[in-house]
């Protein structure tokens, strides 16, 4: 039996080695070898994660955490930080999802990217991403988490701008990176404040002292950390980068921008659940931001026509729901939804990728339709994903979403109502997408229809596995009302125990829960029927660009003009200021100063070089005068 310490350090080691092997030999390795190394390293990580998971399960509940300090990294004065890992129920769950879903997406990428000339580069980035993501969730202090946090941001940037010859994609990558930087600033300030007030950045030490700190400081710290989460997890007002991030290859959208990286904010809040539980103001803010994001993004998704954009806004909306859960103190529900969302959203993105692949790069749902008979595997798996995200029992999304709605209902009826609207909109736009893509007339171009083909095995197998997970994933958290025992909440209980003592969680009676479930499911089915009537019975197709549309529709299709608003209030003034600084401070100030210095040196030397006339007698004379002056000075003094 290998020691658990070794297992812990092996988890991030494999992807790192995979990255180094592939990145250092990008030109030499054949595609087959690269695929083997990249997928193999993540698979090994996954196996080790399972081993760690079962080790944790085998221990008594109070002893379920493994911490490992590799070495002392920084020691300066009072400050010390070590490279240390912490594996507890929370991070082990993330490890399983990151490496498990990550492995499936790696396999999928083999098929999806095999025509691409950047195949090896792509896989090296993916492995690097997995490494940083593991660092993020395994770190036992804020600094290691921050390194992972920045690292995944870097990989996200590299992969969004993967096809760097397209300037628009580069712009999208820059946007993602800069938006994340704004959030990261808050995050960094939060970590610094934690060090200032707690004198340590180790989780265990911080949480042990958390109750002794005053609420104001804690609120400030948690708000700053949440700003980081807003950036990373695409919440209002920093969400606009995520839809643009769809410029990257589809497996990237699935792995980074749906299943793993964007949930880093959820992880961070859950890791700091004690701090958040002690600052109710921040929790209220999270509820508001999460709820607003969930509704806002859902309405935008209704009017989008790009298959990946719909899914991107859907991701933003679902992340909003998760934050809503966290804000209500229902940390377990947030994690539960994160897990099921990772399954079904990765599935939906990969399914969308399969469709795009089959149609030779077509992404507009107005040019799809009738693909059911051409792509049977994609069709069925996508259907499973759509049912899961819409919350139809017994698919995974039903259980996790229902749990969030139940705690929202217990907290406040208005919050519940808004969350329900957001989730009904989700059902509507997902079925709109589904019907427009797979049913109705074939609207794809002739060229695309000639090449249409079901995707290869490397694509369909991950789809199938994820579809199965989307169907059964919810059973890890069947609520008591439905006769389950909610295994997940028991498993996570040690992590959230201290917070659950602080936040009073309302428990609904079983009958109320039945009514809530029934209402939501009934309304969801109504939404599906509406979508069916609109897009199958009436065969409506969204209007093409330039055709007159209603005001609301135009507002939604243009995403409430938020990008334009940001452009007007942030980007434009910034450019304006830069222009002023450029023409005044740069041109008139700095340039004049530097050029003036240069010119004065030239002019001065033009005069002084006359002194050097080459005559020895003159030099001697000057020297004598100099010596006499020095002596005279010495005498007078």
């Amino acid at each position, binding site marked *: 039996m290998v020691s658990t310490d070794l297992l812990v350090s092996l988890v991030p080691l494999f992807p790192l080695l995979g990255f180094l092997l592939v990145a250092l030999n990008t030109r030499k390795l054949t595609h087959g070898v690269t695929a083997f190394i990249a997928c193999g390293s993540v698979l090994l990580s996954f196996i080790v994660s399972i081993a760690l998971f079962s080790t944790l399960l085998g221990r008594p509940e109070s002893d379920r955490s493994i911490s490992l300090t590799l070495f002392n990294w920084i020691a300066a004065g009072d400050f010390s930080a070590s490279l240390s890992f912490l594996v507890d129920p929370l991070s082990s769950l993330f490890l399983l999802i990151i490496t498990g879903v990550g492995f499936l997406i790696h396999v999928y990428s083999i098929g999806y990217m095999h025509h691409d000339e950047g195949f090896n580069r792509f896989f090296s980035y993916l492995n690097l991403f997995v490494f940083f993501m593991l660092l993020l969730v395994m770190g036992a202090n804020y600094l290691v988490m921050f390194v992972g946090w920045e690292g995944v941001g870097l990989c996200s940037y590299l992969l969004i701008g993967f096809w760097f010859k397209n300037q628009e994609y580069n712009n999208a990558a820059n946007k993602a990176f800069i938006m994340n930087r704004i959030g990261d600033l808050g995050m960094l300030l939060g970590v610094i404040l934690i060090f200032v007030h707690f004198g340590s950045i180790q989780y265990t030490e911080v949480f042990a002292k958390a109750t002794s700190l005053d609420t104001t400081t804690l609120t400030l710290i948690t708000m700053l950390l949440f700003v980081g989460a807003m950036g990373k997890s695409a919440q209002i007002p920093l969400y606009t980068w995520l839809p643009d991030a769809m410029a990257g290859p589809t497996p990237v959208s699935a792995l980074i921008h749906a299943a793993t990286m964007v949930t880093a904010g959820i992880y961070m809040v859950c890791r700091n659940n004690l701090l958040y539980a002690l600052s109710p103001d921040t929790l209220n803010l999270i509820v508001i931001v999460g709820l607003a994001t969930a509704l806002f993004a859902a309405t935008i998704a209704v009017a989008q026509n790009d298959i990946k954009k719909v899914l991107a806004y859907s991701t933003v909306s679902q992340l909003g729901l998760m934050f809503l859960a966290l804000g209500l103190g229902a940390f377990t529900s947030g994690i539960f939804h994160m897990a099921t969302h990772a399954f079904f959203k990765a599935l939906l993105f990969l399914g969308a990728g399969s469709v795009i692949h089959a149609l030779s790069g077509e992404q507009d749902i107005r040019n799809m339709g009738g693909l059911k008979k051409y792509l049977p595997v994609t069709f069925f798996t996508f259907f499973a994903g759509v049912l899961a995200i819409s919350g139809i029992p017994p698919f995974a999304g039903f259980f996790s979403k229902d749990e969030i709605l139940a705690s929202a209902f217990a907290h406040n009826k208005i919050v519940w109502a808004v969350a329900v609207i957001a989730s009904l909109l989700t059902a509507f736009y997902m079925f709109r997408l589904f019907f427009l893509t797979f049913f109705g007339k074939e609207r794809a171009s002739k060229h695309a229809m000639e090449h249409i083909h079901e995707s290869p095995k490397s694509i369909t197998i991950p789809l199938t596995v994820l579809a199965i997970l989307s169907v059964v994933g919810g059973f890890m958290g069947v609520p008591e009302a439905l006769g389950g025992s909610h295994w997940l909440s028991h498993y996570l209980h040690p992590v959230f125990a201290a917070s659950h003592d602080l936040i009073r969680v309302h428990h609904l009676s079983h009958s109320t829960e039945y009514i809530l479930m029934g209402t939501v499911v009934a309304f969801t089915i109504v939404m599906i029927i509406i979508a069916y009537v609109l897009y199958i019975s009436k065969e409506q197709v969204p209007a093409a660009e330039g055709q007159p549309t209603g005001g609301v529709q135009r507002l939604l299709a243009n995403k409430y003009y938020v990008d334009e608003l940001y452009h007007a209030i942030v980007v434009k003034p910034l450019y304006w200021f830069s222009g002023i600084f450029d023409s005044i401070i740069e041109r008139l100030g700095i340039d004049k100063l530097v050029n003036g210095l240069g010119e004065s040196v030239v002019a001065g030397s033009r005069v002084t*070089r006359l002194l*050097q006339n080459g*005559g*020895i007698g003159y030099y001697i004379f000057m020297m004598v005068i100099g010596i006499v002056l020095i002596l005279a000075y010495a005498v007078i003094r």
Partner: protein
Amino acid sequence: MNALPIDMGLLLAGVLFTLGLISVLIRRNIIFMLISVEIMLNAAGLAFIVAGSRWAQADGQVMFIFILTMAAAEVSVGLALILQIYHQLKTLDSDAADKMNG
């Protein structure tokens, strides 16, 4: 034995030094400039001897030996340079060697 009167000795040294200096400044022939420098060196040496005699110390004479040695070395280098200058410029006029001007 009477010591040299120090003021007279130093006056002589000063006169010699000034003569040497003036001659370095006004002469244009490089050989004469070199000779003038020798006069200045010897004036300095004389000042050391006088001072050494006044305080009955051997240091003054030691310094003079140093100056003598240095002067010999200096002359050997200086003459070699003068030869080179003559070789290059076919003249000993110091003003002719003014190519290194700004």
